[in-house]
């Protein structure tokens, strides 16, 4: 009985898998030709081939596409470097890398034409929103997590209220707040562009979630560590930055990486407030009247790209957890 069920299941999976492969590969059209695509009964990957420049770079000037391309590769290389080596010179590499990326993206020097950030789009925008979102939210989240565990009731109340408020509402409402409310908060004559507003919302959002991951690490530190630090006569800041945080952050790495993966996925929501991130360029590429009706292919492609990034991060996180498990008693 069990074996028959197993065999039936196996056959069903085989059949569905074959149907999918038949559609996705055997009967698929790879050349960028809408007529051939409509005539064929398989997937139309020609759509992706035709639109790959728009999808990868958005509305960045066509002749200058090598610049966001190079910047994306550089940014990914910096992330990989950070994952593999935790040394002081990685910080220096980031500083230098970000300057190069800034020069590449904006231009205006070294003979590169200036490109305003309204025209940035595609993969580089997703990567930049993630990078700056995490880089600025992380220190903020440490302050929030420490504040939440503080013995001073006012500070604790402010931090708890902030974290719970942000975690209780959807990201969209925070993005709406930044895109429609923020202009009202600023004094007359001061305005922040759309990209920066979205970035600000993402930072505020990420800080609350990262703070909870850091708090988990802080809670895992045994009480005697605090007491030993007190016995040595260390003050609050010495105790926190020399004894508690180094241990807490090491424990918090796996949940922090998990939060980072979630955040990378969440940056796709900036599409709703009209920014050209990777998902948004894919959606816009479907608006071409000659190429309507290939949404299934387009979003499968989007899923594959996001999956590659997120899955590599989660493999890395798993490796970290395994090595942490080995070093602990």
């Amino acid at each position, binding site marked *: 009985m069990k074996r028959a069920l197993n065999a039936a299941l196996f056959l069903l999976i085989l059949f569905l898998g074959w149907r999918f492969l038949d559609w996705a590969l055997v009967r698929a059209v790879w050349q960028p030709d809408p007529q051939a695509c409509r005539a064929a009964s398989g997937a139309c990957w020609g759509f992706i081939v035709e639109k790959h420049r728009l999808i990868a770079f958005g509305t960045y000037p066509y002749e200058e596409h090598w610049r966001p391309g190079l910047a994306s590769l550089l940014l990914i290389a910096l992330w990989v470097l950070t994952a593999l080596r935790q040394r002081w010179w990685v910080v220096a590499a980031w500083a230098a890398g970000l300057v190069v990326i800034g020069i590449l993206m904006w231009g205006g020097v070294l003979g590169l034409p200036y490109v305003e950030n309204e025209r940035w789009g595609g993969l580089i925008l997703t990567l930049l929103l993630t990078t700056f979102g995490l880089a600025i939210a992380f220190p903020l989240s440490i302050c929030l997590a420490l504040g939440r565990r503080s013995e001073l009731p006012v500070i604790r109340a402010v931090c708890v209220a902030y974290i719970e*408020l942000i975690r209780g509402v959807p990201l969209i409402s925070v993005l*709406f*707040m930044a895109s429609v409310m923020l202009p009202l908060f*600023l004094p007359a004559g001061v305005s922040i562009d759309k990209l920066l507003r979205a970035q600000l919302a993402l930072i505020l959002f990420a800080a609350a979630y990262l703070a909870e991951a850091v708090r988990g690490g802080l809670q895992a530190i045994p009480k005697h560590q605090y007491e030993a630090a007190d016995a040595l006569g260390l003050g609050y800041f010495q105790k926190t930055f020399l004894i508690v945080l180094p241990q807490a952050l090491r424990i918090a790495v796996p949940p922090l990486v998990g939060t980072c993966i979630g955040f990378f*996925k969440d940056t796709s929501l900036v599409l709703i407030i009209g920014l050209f991130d990777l998902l948004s360029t894919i959606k816009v590429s479907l608006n071409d009247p000659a190429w309507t009706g290939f949404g299934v292919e387009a979003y499968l492609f989007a899923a594959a790209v996001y999956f590659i990034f997120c899955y590599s991060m*989660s493999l890395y996180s798993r490796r970290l957890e395994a090595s942490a498990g080995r070093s602990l008693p």
Partner: protein
Amino acid sequence: MAIQAFAAALVLAAAAYLVFNTLANLEARRIASGFAFLWREAGFEIGESAFAYGAADSYLRALAVGLANTFKVSLPGIAFATVLGTAIGLFRLSGNSLLKNLSSGYVEFIRNVPLLVQLFFWYALITEALPAPREALKPLPGVFLTNRGLFFPTFAGVPELQGFNFAGGGALSPEFAALLIGLSIYTAAFIAEIVRAGVASVPSGQWEAARALGLRQQHVLRHVVAPQALRVIVPPLTSQYLNLVKNSSLAVAIGYPDLVSIANTTINQTGQAIEGVAIIMAVYLTISLAIAALMNWYNARLR
């Protein structure tokens, strides 16, 4: 004490600065603050609503329709995600390596692709791959799958082709169906991990002891393992339910008229940005707190 007073003063000063700026800006843009606009005529139609609504009704009623639509998709979503997630979580622990690998693949893939991409995918699949009403798929008698939605018979009547679309019986719009499928499948992957971890947390001695008593597999699960696993499962499950409700706000991207979508339209029409965002945040905070309270009560009962 001095630090606290300083921190409190800093927060208050920042808040006062923002409020002052906002009042000046509202004055300059001639936007009257307050919730009086809620009783004005909305003037827009809503694609689907749980109760009678027309363009002549007030913004308040429009927002109520949106809230009802949020619940209409969230509650079945929670039910489907729980059933699917529990099944997949148990498959991951089963001795059958085929089921195990398949469910692991499901969890890995679904968790590593943004929900918004998945929603767009399901919406594209429904509107592009399904046939027009005239060539509707009929998986069951009286049930029609089309690119205009899913039609099924109810006690009130059966769907019939009239002109270009079906009328009568029950109908699910493509937007609703895409959102419900997307939310259920996405959240199920997270619930599966929670269920797996919960069941795995029960020591193997408990299984062995129950079997040694001569209990059958289903009784072991129901009376020995489940009560212990649920204690581990319930707290993280609560946050998944909350996430599903919050994620239902992505409806705005595929055109399902949920609360956020209607509030967004209201903000665009009236310019009442602060009130609109405040309504969204207040509603979701209330829902979050209510679900948390409900699950805390359930969790307390389990102990």
